[in-house]
């Protein structure tokens, strides 16, 4: 294992032994959440070459303007995409959870258009883009799953636009938490009541377009409903049904029934 960054340095790519391939299980599960893949395709995905890399919280994984040669797959921990304006203001534009491929986009676009940073300590399986491209050429179902994954991320982006543009603070925060519960439950198989939301007051502010002070007040209001509770700095889900009610949450945009 090596410690990141940067990904454009030559990485040691090894053909994984069988046990190492198991590490990619969660990535396979992510793609299966929206796409049909044969067992042969799944086996091929599990044997993708990769190198394992560890990043510390806040370390950059990709930077705007770079040209990626590798696609990191998030095995554990959280990461986020963000963009900055000239005065340093930051908007978090996507939150990535275990199982998520972090840069399918670079299969088709030459230049990285945003920053990708570790939120918590993360483990990445770093796969050469060439290997993914080859697999997409040889396996149409995999190519289709790559596109579906990009489309679902775009759908989540549209929901976030609506969230930030039109929902009030409490519904906005509740909506984000509902989404995280759904996504974590589905891919990382983490039950709602054991999820630790790793975002600080300031990160929530940069994600939801509110001031940190407003986030704090909103958390308090949400806590008073019983929907969430805080243990020290940790934020946990208390009453998921109540949280969904406050957010007026519908999971349609997550496309969870895409393969039924």
């Amino acid at each position: 294992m090596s410690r990141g960054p940067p990904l454009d340095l030559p990485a040691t790519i090894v053909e994984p032994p069988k046990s190492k391939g198991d590490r990619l299980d969660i990535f396979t599960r992510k793609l299966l959440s929206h796409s049909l893949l044969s067992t042969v395709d799944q086996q091929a995905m599990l044997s993708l070459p990769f190198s394992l890399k560890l990043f510390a919280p806040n370390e950059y994984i990709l930077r705007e303007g770079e040209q990626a040669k590798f696609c990191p797959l998030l095995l554990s921990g959280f990461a986020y995409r963000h963009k900055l304006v000239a005065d340093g203001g930051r908007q978090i534009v996507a939150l990535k959870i275990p199982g998520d491929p972090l840069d399918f986009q670079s299969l088709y676009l030459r230049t990285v258009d945003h920053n990708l940073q570790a939120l918590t300590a993360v483990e990445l399986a770093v796969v050469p883009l060439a290997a993914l491209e080859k697999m997409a050429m040889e396996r149409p179902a995999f190519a289709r799953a790559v596109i579906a994954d990009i489309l679902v991320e775009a759908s989540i982006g549209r929901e976030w636009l609506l969230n930030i543009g039109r929902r009030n603070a409490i519904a906005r925060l509740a909506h984000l938490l509902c989404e995280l519960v759904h996504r974590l439950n589905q891919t990382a198989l983490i039950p709602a009541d054991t999820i630790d939301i790793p975002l600080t007051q300031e990160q929530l502010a940069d994600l939801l377009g509110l001031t940190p002070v407003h986030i704090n007040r909103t958390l308090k209001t949400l806590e008073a409903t019983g929907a969430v509770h805080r243990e020290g700095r940790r934020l946990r889900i208390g009453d998921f049904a109540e949280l969904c009610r406050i957010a007026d949450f519908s999971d349609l945009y997550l496309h969870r029934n895409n393969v039924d």
Partner: protein
Amino acid sequence: MGRYFFHTTDGVAEPDDVGFDLTDDDAARREAVRFGGGLLNDDPDIIRNDKGLRIDVTNETGRLCFAVIILAVEANRSDGARV
């Protein structure tokens, strides 16, 4: 750098016991104004009371640094009171 606390009153008082770290009083004032803007955006009816919305900003020592007060004033009140 210091911790500032943003206490709100909009009919009911909501003291802030968490606060937020900011570089200086100027940054805290801007934060208070943006915070007030966010509260108004969330619920424009928040100032439908005689005293409006008030944000008192205190520092770590508990000293009041400044207050942001937002009021809506009716121009023609039926009771003839002058504002």
